[in-house]
């Protein structure tokens, strides 16, 4: 299961960067004002320029989330590697978990920014973006930092055991 999970994470990370590339293309497409895009937006937004900026902001947030997701997937892959080798309680994994915690926090903050954009679109256009705050996400941040502390203690204990004859 661990080996399968590692393969899944590698492929999900590739999809992550593909999504970021598409989102970046979307940002560029929206910031360079082609007439076709504005015509489409005019049907949905009273002010097409503002609508263009709002959608570009959403795509921009997606682009910013991609490196955070990359950090999470790569650190998780490394952690799984140590578990497969039978020695997960090593100091490196403490660092990996802390990096995952900070990446999750960054994603939560970007989610708040997304909420801001959603609120702006709702107020200016009446279009409901369908955003709601994620308590689970914030709890996950706490959980991962606690887990990092647990792994730190585990690494110390592992070290003691290995130095015991």
């Amino acid at each position, binding site marked *: 299961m661990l080996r399968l999970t590692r393969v899944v994470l590698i492929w999900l990370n590739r999809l992550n960067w593909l999504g970021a590339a598409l989102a970046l293309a979307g940002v560029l497409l929206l910031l360079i004002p082609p007439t076709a895009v504005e015509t489409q937006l005019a049907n949905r937004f009273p002010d097409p320029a503002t609508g263009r900026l709002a959608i570009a902001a959403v795509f921009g947030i997606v682009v910013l989330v991609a490196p955070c997701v990359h950090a999470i997937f790569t650190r998780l892959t490394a952690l799984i590697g140590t578990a497969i080798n039978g020695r997960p309680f090593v100091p490196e994994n403490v660092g990996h978990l802390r990096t995952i915690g900070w990446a999750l926090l960054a994603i939560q903050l970007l989610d708040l920014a997304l909420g801001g954009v959603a609120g702006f679109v709702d107020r200016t256009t009446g279009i409901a973006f369908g955003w709601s705050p994620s308590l689970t996400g914030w709890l996950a941040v706490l959980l991962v930092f606690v887990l990092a502390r647990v792994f730190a203690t585990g690494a110390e204990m592992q070290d003691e055991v290995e*130095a015991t004859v």
Partner: protein
Amino acid sequence: MAVRITLDEVLYQRRLTLTDLADRVGITLANLSNLKTGKARAIRFTTLDAICRALDCQPGDILAFDPTTPQTPDD
């Protein structure tokens, strides 16, 4: 660490090698070597028991405390 392992002296008196001792007590040569060279940070009572039985000695024969050795942060 101020606690020293004086296994070499007892092995010499018994005319045994570390390999002989490893075979008798069922501990790997690598672990016994770590113990002899001071790399081990702890010893189990079961290990101490096995070594003393194999060498027919007291724990104090293979352990010594040197109070002049400064204490390290890991101690």
